C-alpha cells in the first residue's frame, strides 16, 4: 500500500515539476505578455495542484493534508488576481496608446 502511495506521489509530483518547467520556459520564450501570463497560470494552478495532490498521501495527518489543499486554493486565488491585474493594466494601456 505504501509503495503504491509512493509511486503515486512520484508520478504526480514529477508531472507537476514538468509543468513548472514548461511554464518557466513559456515565461522566458513566449513573445507577448498575455501568452506569458497564460504559461505562468498553467504552472501555478495545474503544476502546484499536481504537486499538492501527489503530497497528499504523504501527509502525516488529515489536518496536514487539509493545510496542503488550502495552500493550493490560496495560491489559486492570488495567481488569478495577479494575472487579472496585469492583463487589466495591459488592456488600459492599449486603450490609450
Amino acid at each position, binding site marked *: 500500500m505504501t509503495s503504491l502511495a509512493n509511486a503515486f506521489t512520484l508520478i504526480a509530483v514529477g508531472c507537476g515539476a514538468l509543468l513548472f518547467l514548461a511554464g518557466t520556459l513559456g515565461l522566458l520564450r513566449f513573445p507577448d505578455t498575455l501568452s506569458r501570463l497564460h504559461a505562468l497560470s498553467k504552472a501555478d494552478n495545474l503544476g502546484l495542484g499536481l504537486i499538492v495532490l501527489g503530497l497528499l498521501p504523504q501527509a502525516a495527518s488529515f489536518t496536514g493534508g487539509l493545510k496542503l489543499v488550502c495552500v493550493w486554493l490560496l495560491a489559486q486565488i*492570488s495567481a488569478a*488576481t495577479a494575472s*487579472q491585474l496585469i492583463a487589466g493594466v495591459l488592456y488600459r494601456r492599449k486603450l490609450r496608446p
Partner: protein
Amino acid sequence: MTLLLDLALIAGLLALAVHVARASDDQSAIIGFIAFGLLLGVGWTRLAAIDVAMTEAAIGGGVTGMLLLRAEARLRERSSQARSAGRITKAAAAIGCTVVAAGLALAVLSFPSPAPTLAPAAAAALDATGLGNPVTAVLLAYRALDTLLEKVVLLLALLGVWSLAPDQFWGGAPELRRADAPQPFIYLARILPPFGVLIAVYMCWVGADAPGGTFQAGTVLAAMWLLVMLAGLRPAPETRRTTLRLLLVGGPVLFFTVGFLGFAVADGFLSYPEGAAKPIIVGIEAALTASIALTLGLLVAGPSGRAPVP
C-alpha cells in the same frame, strides 16, 4: 541530491543579487529583490530555520517589496536619472567589497569545530517555560529584553516616519488608496482577509510549540489590513486618533508592565513566576501581534498625506 538543490538555490540568490546591482531601472531591480526574498525564504528552510524562513518570506520578500515598489511608483516622474559612480570609483568599490566578502568567507570557513552552541542551555530551561518552540522561548523568555527593545525600535521608526509629514498634514491620514482600484483587486480584498486573519491567529497560537509566532502573525495581519486599505474598502486611520496610538503602544507597555512586575513576583526584570510562564508569554504574544500588525501597516502606509478632518 540535496547538494544540487542547495547549489541551485545559491546560484539563484547570487544571480538575483547581481541583477539588482546591474539592472538599469529601479523597478526591475526591486522585482528582482522580491524574488530574492522569497528564494532566501526557501534557503532558510535548508538551514533548518523554519521560523526565520517564515519571517524572511513575509517581511523580507513581501512587506519590504511592497514598500519599495510603492516608493518607486511615486518617484517615477523623477527629474533626472541619478548619476552613477565613475569607472574608477566602481572598480575601487568592487575591490573593497571583494575584500570584505573574502574576509567574511574566511570567517565562515574558520568557524571553530565543534561549533559552540547554546542549544543545550536552551533545551534545559525549555520545560520551565512550558513552551515547545525554542526560538519563541529565546525571543520571549531568555532574551525577552531584545524583543522588548525591538518593539521600541519599531515604534521609534514609526515616529520618525510620521514626523516627516508636512506641518499642515500632521495628524491626518496617510494617503494609500489609488483613485481606481481594479475590480479583481477589490474582490481579493473582500475574500482574502477572513482567511488571512484566521492564519494569523493560528500562527500566533501555534508559535508557542511549533514554527510561527508574533512577527509572522503580525506581518500577515498587516498585509490583510493594507489590502483592505489599498482597495479602498476602509480608509486609512488618522494618525492623531487616540485609540490608534493606545493600540500602538499597548504591546510594549504590557511587556514593560510584565517586566517590572517580575521584580515583585519573580527574580527580577522580565522574569516570569514559575508555572505561569506560558500563559503570560501567550498573553504578551497576543498583545504584541496586534501592535506589530498596526506598526508594520502604518510603516508601509507612510507619513500622513492629507490634512486632518476636523
